[in-house]
């Protein structure tokens, strides 16, 4: 999991700031990216690139730790040893991803402490899907399979991006996500082919999650018109709509195959191979992302409590003479 690397606040004027950049350096930078070279932390880069990548990696990292909360709730409730141990290992991976990603973002100059502080103060975002509740074990299974699946679509694309530390982190993350996908798929199939109670639980969870899953890749490309420069700089590797189509193509048949239904009467693949669906409620998406979702306050409160309760430990760990050193990779 869990990052939908479609950054939630792509600047509305993506060209702002470029006029202050050295045109020769900028041209060289763009040529390197066009040749498929990776940009490394000590290389020259435009401010906008640094800012946008920081925001994107940071949001991805936040999504990992916030996303570990709804699934983590089910560690202590997982039914049976096998599920309990797997759920624990899976969620632990996600926290490990956050650790990797915060390190990658730190190479751009922002400390983990600053990022976490921005998270609890609402200045930076995380994947909006985690603002929805996971009332049953089956909801947790849906996240493990389909949210992770969505994240893989995104992350496989972004692993081919231009920023070296992020790409390397994503390569490692994707390798673990591949296991999560198997884990989630196994859990969903198990429930969907189980007793009537289990099948009902799974169908209801899928119905609850489907609208959020449809917004996972971010607003339609028709609505976010400023991604061109980010695509050219290989910060963003695929459009929101392309990711959504790829996801639908890969997973809707698998969902139908195990006898589950999806709560969208318009969902179908047309003759051109393009998936048609009811347009998600983007107004609701905006409302939730801006803080008014069912679980926003709870998620941030948990994170804030963790930060506050653990502050004495971090204070104790600080060496008075130590200086902050930005990691290099």
């Amino acid at each position, binding site marked *: 999991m869990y990052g939908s690397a479609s950054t939630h606040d792509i600047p509305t004027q993506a060209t702002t700031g470029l006029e202050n950049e050295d045109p020769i350096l900028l041209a060289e930078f763009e040529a390197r990216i066009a040749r498929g070279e990776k940009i490394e932390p000590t290389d020259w880069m435009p401010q906008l690139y640094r800012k946008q990548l920081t925001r994107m990696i940071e949001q991805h990292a936040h999504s990992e*730790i916030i996303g*570990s*909360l709804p699934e*983590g709730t*089910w*560690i*202590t*409730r*997982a*039914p*049976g*040893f096998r*599920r*309990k*141990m797997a759920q*624990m*290992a899976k*969620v*632990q991976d996600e*926290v*490990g991803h*956050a*650790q990797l990603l*915060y390190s990658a973002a730190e190479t751009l100059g922002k400390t983990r402490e600053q990022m976490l502080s921005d998270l609890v103060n609402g200045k930076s975002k995380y994947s909006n899907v985690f603002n929805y509740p996971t009332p*049953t*074990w089956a909801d947790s299974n849906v996240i493990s399979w389909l949210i992770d699946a969505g994240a893989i679509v995104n992350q496989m694309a972004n692993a081919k991006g231009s920023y070296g530390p992020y790409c390397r982190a994503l390569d490692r993350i994707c390798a673990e996500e591949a296991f999560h996908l198997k884990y989630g798929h196994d859990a969903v199939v*198990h429930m969907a082919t*189980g*007793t009537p*109670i*289990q099948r009902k*639980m799974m169908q209801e969870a899928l119905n609850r999650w489907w609208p959020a899953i449809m917004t996972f890749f971010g607003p339609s490309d028709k609505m976010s018109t400023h991604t061109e420069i980010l695509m050219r700089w290989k910060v963003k590797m695929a459009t929101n709509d392309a990711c959504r189509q790829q996801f639908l193509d890969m997973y809707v048949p698998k969902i139908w195959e195990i006898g589950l239904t999806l709560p969208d009467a318009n969902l179908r693949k047309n003759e051109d191979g393009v998936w048609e669906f009811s347009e998600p409620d983007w107004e609701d998406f905006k409302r939730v992302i801006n803080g008014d979702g069912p679980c926003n306050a709870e998620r941030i409160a*948990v*994170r804030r*409590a*963790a930060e506050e*309760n*653990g*502050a*004495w*430990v*971090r*204070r*104790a*760990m600080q060496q008075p003479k130590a200086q902050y050193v930005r990691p290099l990779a």
Partner: protein
Amino acid sequence: MDPKLDLLYRLADDQLILGHRNSEWNGLGPILEEDIAFSSMAQDKLGHSLQLYMLLHELGEAEPDTVAFTRNTPQFHCCQLTELPIGEYDFSLIRHFLFDHAELLRFEALADSSYEPLALVARKVKGELKYHVLHANTWVKRLGTATEEAITRMQAALEFTLPYALGIFETTEAEPEIISSGLFIGEMELQRRWEESISKVLAQTALTLPDLRLLTPVSGGRYGQHTEHLQPLLDEMAEVFRLDPTADW
């Protein structure tokens, strides 16, 4: 109770319940690295308990899932130390330190048990517990020599936790036979080794180990007497499992 069953239930229940508690640190640790570390230890402990429940199953007890997920408080034999809520990091760390020192020594001794299947499990488990102790020692030494705030907190946690930790060594009627049959060295000898072991680490910190003779151990756990915290934990653990007892989850 048969001495083997008596011993195995105590060992397995301790591991299961503390493993469950450790897993609650997900998302709440003071730094991400500690979320991850507590999760690793929780996974190990759950794995250890499963192996022990499997030994019990071989001796005629029910399946591990049934034993772990369907019993109620009076049927549990864990010490009360393991069932206390995670509290703040100082308490969880001190509990981990006090428990795992005992646990490592216990499983080192069990590696020579006359009951060969248990000895085999113990030889594997002790290798993992070595890292749990290493983790606890690293943090206790670090925080126990850091700021005044940290030292004060750690000292208070130590004093609160020690009476519960002494409950680890509560014995049952089976104790004489457990020792005479060579199943295990016995709780009294284990406690002696434990005191030596924790003293060595605490001596390297600004923390003071109180005189343990003056403390009253919190006991009862080995006989199914528990704090009010255990039943809610068990209810939560079995919440999904009990939704459909006929289902394979």
